[in-house]
């Protein structure tokens, strides 16, 4: 198992290098000059040139990339051109915020969606199935920013139950922190319930068609037992793959949710970085996100044998 994990990690290194090179080059291809953005419409050409030189942007792209990669290998992802903060600690601090929301939302969504999807599959083509699938499709179709704003206006503004903007970390005040993240978590949960329910339903339908389920039923097992012992565990494995993908995707930042709810998360950092053409932040964040993907997928793969004994690490 350990060897498998190490192999996977080693194999991910070329992926990360490729990602970093692609992001580096793509950012340089995007029009827009960070120096001009900093100086605004009053940019003096000489001053802009001086600033470019000070930021190392006057060197060739390949030299810039080489130097950046060299520093990155040593754990230094550079400093933000927007606020001069080191990128790695910045990304890590923002990741904590994103991870708190994402893990909470995905966990709740999984707990709700997997049984729902299983029930829908079990009652396939009935009213219950139709209601669950319709609800899931509706949740999937709602844009997150719209749902977020509605939640904000209703629970924050109209009912006044939760604060409208801001963020408090759990280390500062756990109760306040929970109040601040309840709406973003709820918004994300609702959306993820839509995705996971459909996946769980599809997986459960596949399982329900298998012979061992028919055999279990023929043995005279009760339906609840068939579902609990034979369908749910076997349908969970494919759903786990999706959860892994969803987690990797969301941990890379939920920029829209973070923007609507004013959360200082990784997604907002990345989007702000793109708008400001903050090259070190964009490059650093993308490398960080790629690493998250690799690690999350590895963890999911390592967890697979526990849920599906047919799959082994070997």
């Amino acid at each position: 198992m350990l060897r498998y994990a190490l192999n996977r990690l080693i194999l991910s290194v070329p992926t990360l290098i490729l990602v970093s090179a692609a992001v580096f080059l793509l950012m340089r291809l995007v029009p827009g000059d960070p120096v001009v953005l900093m100086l605004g419409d009053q940019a003096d050409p000489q001053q802009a040139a001086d600033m470019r030189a000070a930021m190392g942007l006057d060197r060739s792209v390949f030299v810039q990339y080489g130097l950046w990669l060299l520093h990155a290998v040593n754990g230094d992802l550079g400093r933000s051109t927007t606020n001069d903060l080191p990128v790695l600690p910045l990304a890590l601090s923002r990741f904590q915020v994103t991870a708190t929301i994402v893990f909470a939302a995905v966990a709740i969504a999984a707990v709700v969606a997997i049984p729902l999807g299983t029930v829908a599959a079990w009652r396939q083509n009935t009213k219950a199935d139709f209601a669950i699938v319709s609800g899931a499709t509706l949740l999937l179709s709602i844009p997150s920013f719209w749902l977020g704003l509605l939640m904000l206006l209703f629970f924050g503004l109209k009912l006044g139950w939760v604060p409208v903007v801001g963020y408090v970390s759990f280390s500062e005040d756990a109760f306040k922190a929970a109040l601040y993240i309840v709406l973003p978590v709820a918004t994300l949960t609702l959306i993820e319930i839509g995705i996971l329910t459909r996946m769980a339903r599809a997986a459960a339908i596949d399982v329900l068609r298998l012979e061992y389920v028919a055999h279990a039923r023929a043995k005279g097992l009760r339906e609840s037992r068939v579902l609990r012992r034979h369908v749910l565990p076997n349908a969970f494995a494919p759903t786990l793959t999706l959860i892994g993908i969803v987690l990797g995707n969301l941990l890379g930042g939920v920029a829209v949710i973070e923007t609507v709810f004013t959360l200082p998360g990784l997604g907002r950092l990345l989007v702000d970085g793109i708008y400001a053409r903050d090259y070190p932040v964009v490059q650093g964040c993308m490398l960080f996100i790629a690493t998250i993907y690799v690690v999350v997928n590895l963890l999911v793969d390592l967890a697979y044998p526990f849920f599906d004994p047919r799959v082994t690490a070997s």
Partner: protein
Amino acid sequence: MRAALGRTVFLGCLWAAQPALAQTPGDYTIRASLNSDIRGTQPGGNRDANTDVVMMHVLEGLVAYREDTSVGPMLAESWSLSEDGRTYTFKLRQGVTFHNGATMTAADVVWSWRRYLNPATQWRCLPDLDGRGLSKVVSVEAVDAQTVAVTLDKPSAIFLSIIARADCGQTAILHPDSVGADGQWREPIGTGPYRIGEWKRGQSIELTRFDRYASRQGEMDGFTGGKVAYAARLRFVVIPDASAARAALLGNSVDVLTDVPMAEATDLRTRPGVTLLHTPTMGVTAFLLQTRDPVLRDPRIRQAFALSLDVQQIVEGTMEGMAQQNPSIVPIRSRWHDEAQSQRPARNVAAARRLLAEAGYRGQPIRMQVNRRYANTYDAAVAAQAMAEEAGLKIELEVLDWATQLDRYTRGDYQMQSFIYSARLDPSLSYEMIAGPKETQPRKVWDNPAAQALVQRSMQVTDDAERQAILAELFKLFSQDVPMVILYNQPDFLAGRDAIQGLRAWPSGHTRLWNVWVR
């Protein structure tokens, strides 16, 4: 709509006019929104408009902009100009204290100025004062403990206007402990009514009242005048999304919204419990026309475009009556803006068609670059596109993100742009912003040597009447050349809960939270 506007402005005026006499500083926090985090704390360093808003509560320079956009004394008690127009002698105010308790002296002023003039500081306004611009500061000397002399290589009418600029950090006077022993920036130890408190990156920045602040006498006047820090704390909260910011104001999560976008302003002005203030700023919204473009280099086509537009209608339609059309680059609230600079030829589609025919225009498409970050510039472009089409001009809109558009502007890589300029508080600086040789400065919109010579002259003459005459001449030339069509000076929208008193909008567009209290 006009009635609602009138009510808003009237209420706003009443709001602002309530006497401060009964007010005393209290132990409370005023919370204001920012649409992005500040970039840094170094005056005139890495900054943006939000940074300037926050730092102007902390920092003060020798001079500052007044409400009417003229320059008045701030840390200087007064100043005098030598007969040759080269040496400014500033008499400093007595008893001004830095945030660390030290008393400000001429030595601190000299130290601050020499630091700004050192290229290593990377002060953004250095090019204006090191000879690359109009003049060069050749010496900064302490005459005595309370007097400083700044000598230029040649006279400049805009010297004070430059050093008072917010983006230059008001050339703030700092205590030397603001930098470490290694010369690296640490934190601003200034003289403002507030000092930097806790800065949660990406979330909020809190300023705390400086109890030993030495205020000027008199009324609040722009960045100068009497300043009272009523609130013990000011918390600027970062809320990037405008709808969320509006919800935060309505939900009592913030007290003041700064830099309110037009769409939110329209909504907020009808909301109970909220007062919306607005005033024209010194920023300019305009259509830029590339005079080097094969199609647009013919002035008749540019004139035809200008004649095809009903600017009044564009402004009313896109700004819902909350802005006033202005054909001049000199802002409408500037004391240098006169009646002559308000004259714009009326819309004349027939004349526009005639000019296009004379110029041999055959319907070649003209691409106008726009962005959605400043939604009002996009809306104006859409309206102009339809109006120009009536005259036979074929305009296509190209939507870009702001960074890309700004980059294209800087490189002069466009045919037309719907653009927004930041505020210049001096008319010469307004013209300098657009006039210049495109060969060496592609961002310049107006490449006319006669105009450039006039701009240079306007920066040197110190006689007001003579300067006004130069500005009139510049406007005449500008109207003939039509390098751009100026629409209006964008308003600054400021919204506050009714409990917040003393809030005032002003042409600079920077929100001020001193002299503001909670009822």
